[in-house]
């Protein structure tokens, strides 16, 4: 009995830790700024949707959200295609001796370089290409980051797929690319989904490059646009909370849709 009680208490504690910030965010988004800053209430005493309305009517949040969705979709999609092919090549083809076994590490190293180190070169590059404050500039930047991540992730998934299956397909007359597309890629789908989720999460939430590369609602992404609510001497906390709620929805929705793949992807190859 005491074990059961301890389990319940632990569960409630964990739930509280996990859910309290979410509750606080949603609750804050339904309060007025006055209630947030001057009254510190536990729940909205006069619930209002004004903060959500203000986001879209005064703060151009629709543009920010659209930009985030577009940039994330294209950069992740391109990175997945390029990354999957790159990972496949690393796994299936013999590389020059000096590169053997080192490409993955090299790509990982590129991925873990602190972004701020390359921020200024990327800014100058985009400036010279005329891509500042454009979707294309952000897509190119995020794709470059995501490709390294996708290759690194997908490499391990492709290693788990027996080469015999592709060889059998090629013996039956399929081409190398056909075997990759029709046999290997479908088998690696859970890994692809897991990779996509992480890439989407990282891209959708990215702030630093969006801060440097965008200046207007033309291209500002959701996290970047939300920061514009921070004023010199006053911050619109209510709108920021509403922005947080709306900004979280696409990620939650996406994660719910692909969670089955995520679990399969994460455990792929764990047990042999």
């Amino acid at each position: 009995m005491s074990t059961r009680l301890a389990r319940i208490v632990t569960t409630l504690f964990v739930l509280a830790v996990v859910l309290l910030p979410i509750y606080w965010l949603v609750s804050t988004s339904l309060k007025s700024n006055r209630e947030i800053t001057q009254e510190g209430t536990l729940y909205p005493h006069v619930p209002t949707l004004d903060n959500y309305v203000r986001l879209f009517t005064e703060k151009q949040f629709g543009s920010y959200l659209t930009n985030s969705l577009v940039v994330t979709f294209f950069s992740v999609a391109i990175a997945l295609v390029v990354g999957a092919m790159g990972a496949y090549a690393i796994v299936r083809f013999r590389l020059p001796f000096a590169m053997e076994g080192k490409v993955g590490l090299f790509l990982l190293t590129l991925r873990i370089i602190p972004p701020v180190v390359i921020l200024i070169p990327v800014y100058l590059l985009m400036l010279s290409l005329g891509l500042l404050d454009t979707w294309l500039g952000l897509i190119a930047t995020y794709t470059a980051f995501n490709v390294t991540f996708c290759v690194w992730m997908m490499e391990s998934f492709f290693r788990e797929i027996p080469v015999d299956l592709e060889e059998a397909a090629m013996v039956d007359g399929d081409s190398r690319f056909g075997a990759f597309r029709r046999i290997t890629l479908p088998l690696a789908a859970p890994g692809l989904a897991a990779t996509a989720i992480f890439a989407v999460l990282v891209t959708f939430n990215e702030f630093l490059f969006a801060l440097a590369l965008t200046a207007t609602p033309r291209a500002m992404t959701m996290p970047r646009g939300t920061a514009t609510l921070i004023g010199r001497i006053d911050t619109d906390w209510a709108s920021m909370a509403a922005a947080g709620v709306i900004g979280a929805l696409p990620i939650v929705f996406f994660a719910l849709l692909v969670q089955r793949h995520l679990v399969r992807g994460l455990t792929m190859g764990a047990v042999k």
Partner: protein
Amino acid sequence: MMHSSRLTRRSVIKGGLGLALATTALTTLGLPMPARAAGKKVIIGAFADGGLTPFKQKIIPLAKEQGFDIEFLEDEYGVTLEKWFADAQSGAGQYDLYLLDDPWVPQFGAANVLEDLGAGGIDGADKDWIGSMIDMGYWPPQQGPRVKGFESAKSTLICVPFVGDLQTLTYRNDVFTGGAPKTWDEVIAKGKEGVAAGKIKYPVVFRGVSGNPIVTSWYPVFLSFGGSFFDDKWNPIFNSAEGKASADFFVGTMKQNAPSGVVEFDSDQEGAAILGGEAGAIIQYSGNALKADDPAQTKVAGKLDFGVVPSQAKAIAQMGIFIAGVPKAAPNKANAIEFLKWYVSAETQAKLSEAGSIPVKRSAFGIAKPGNRLIPVALKQLDAGALPRPRTPDWAKVEELLGIELNKALQAGSGGGAALDTAAKQVKDYLTTAGYY
């Protein structure tokens, strides 16, 4: 044959994806995409601040009636300086007009990245300007010390005042029943009576966070005690006897009569204290002061009045105006200058005053119905005295060094004078390294 109506994962994925794509497409199509318009396009970059609300709500529509196609781009205060400076230096040409914070003018001026607005036809000698405001638009400064390299340079109008933001006193009229407190001693003494009467919890509130916030809060106290920041050779003199007295008063007496967490207070917390009815008095900029009559923003609407900042030796506020500059790389430079000429005309400034914002032309303060009670008080403050921060491109660093030391003293609750000595040495060392002497 029965058709299954079960919601499958596949159908949800398909539906969700379709919905997302359709929404994206529709939103994109429906967006007011900022393509180059046929009208007189002007892209204005601004940082988010309540002081610009009347401009956004009332003046932009007027400008549109005049044929200007205004694109107003707001950003976070903390990033705008770096963004705009990079934009101006690299010639990226993303803006036609920057609404700068006035201490940034020297940095842009020294880099020579802003247009000469005098040559563009804006008359800096117009007597209708508030003199202390238009002075801030010149680089190098027309008066006072100049930094090395600019001693003999011609003073050029590179910015024009945009919104006349400055510090004034906001106080509780049920605590200070005889009107605005005249001195800091009165703020504390009468505030204590208000606390004893249960009307307020604290006589005063201010910002104590290190850096710009604490320096901004201390500055009017410092000025009112008779302090000066630099001599005419850029030697720090803020640690004079007057300066030390002001710092000791600030970290000691004022802290003792402020909320317990004041060391960590920034604008939000001090705003909550005064608007929430806890504090008796505050020195603040217009962005927050404009909320004093709005019941949606304050619990004590009707109980907050405005006055000139308290004095000990004099009553001098810090100015922190919005000031507009046109980058040399502006894509619609001529439109931007034309817009500025229209904006600073007496007629438009009168409209700005009617809208409730503090104007930059004296005639606009005298209109029959200014849109906010703060406006006549702001003029009184300007006439009583209002000073900009020292006009050097290195002010941000100076402010940071001083802010750290003041914050340490505030945490300790004493030692303000010693903090100024330490900061003065650090500032002197820094400016020496920067080639000031």
